[in-house]
């Protein structure tokens, strides 16, 4: 390079280039798969229970909402790709709405007046990893 006359370049072979191409293609392919919404492992599901009875199972993914009625009251349970939250409630205190979104890891949302419990089921990679590194 700067001190050796006999400098020779590393001869990269055709197999080298093929291998490098394959590795980067695999990286791009898997990245595209995940970006397109490809999922691996167990799907996460938001479970809605009322008075001890399971009334809804909502898979996380597309943003959706369901209305859950109790006597003359009502809650709206919403899910998206990351978690579940109660977006509307006509109970007096609205503690459930103020709790915001939960992402799993043993969290749950409770609306006592309407006897409603919402929690997440299924493997949650991030929570497990956090618990591990702690």
């Amino acid at each position, binding site marked *: *390079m700067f001190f*050796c006359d*006999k*400098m*020779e370049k*590393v*001869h*990269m*072979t*055709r*197999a*080298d280039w093929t*291998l*490098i191409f394959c*590795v*980067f293609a*695999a*990286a*791009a392919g*898997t*990245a595209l798969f*995940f970006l397109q919404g490809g999922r*691996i*492992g167990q799907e996460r599901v938001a479970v809605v229970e009322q008075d001890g009875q399971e009334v809804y199972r909502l898979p996380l993914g597309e943003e959706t909402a369901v209305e859950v009625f109790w006597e003359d009251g009502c809650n709206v349970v919403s899910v998206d790709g990351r978690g579940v939250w109660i977006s509307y409630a006509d109970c007096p205190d609205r503690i459930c709405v103020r709790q915001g979104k939960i992402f799993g890891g043993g969290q749950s949302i409770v609306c006592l007046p309407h006897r409603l419990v919402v929690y997440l089921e299924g*493997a*949650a*990679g*991030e929570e*497990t*990893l*956090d618990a*591990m*590194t702690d």
Partner: protein
Amino acid sequence: MGKTAVLSMLTGFALILSYVEAAIPLMPQIPGVKLGLANLATVLCLYLYGRREAFLVNMARVLLVSVLFGNLYTAGYSLAGALFSFTAMVTAKRARCFSTVGVSVCGGVFHNIGQLLVAAAVTTTLQVFYYLPWLLLSGGITGILIGILAGEVLVHVRISQGKGSGGIRG
């Protein structure tokens, strides 16, 4: 210089590189995933001496790094990564169609794949594979750089040994 002396120096070199890369956290979520700079010492040893010597240097490095900078937990990850990458590199070198670049890319990529497999087994979640694209990319890039570097070093070592520069392949 005696073989033992050179092997010890290579181990020391690997330790320094391990220390440097420990200061650059790549994926804080997964312990033990790192750039793979220490692979340079392994590649050099593999080409200068052979499988047996490279394996010894590699194992000495994993043991010492775990004792010095890590704990038993990271030792498992390092060991898995080291064994995967070492097997891949020996196989690639025996194929005789790769230069140091191809061999080192194999090592880098399989190091990361090995650690992902261990992480998946320990956490019993497949979600760790979401890191796969990122790890393939980083393993590939450091692999290329380490391979070029190792190739250059070998050329100079062989010139200084008076053996000419032929036979970098295989």
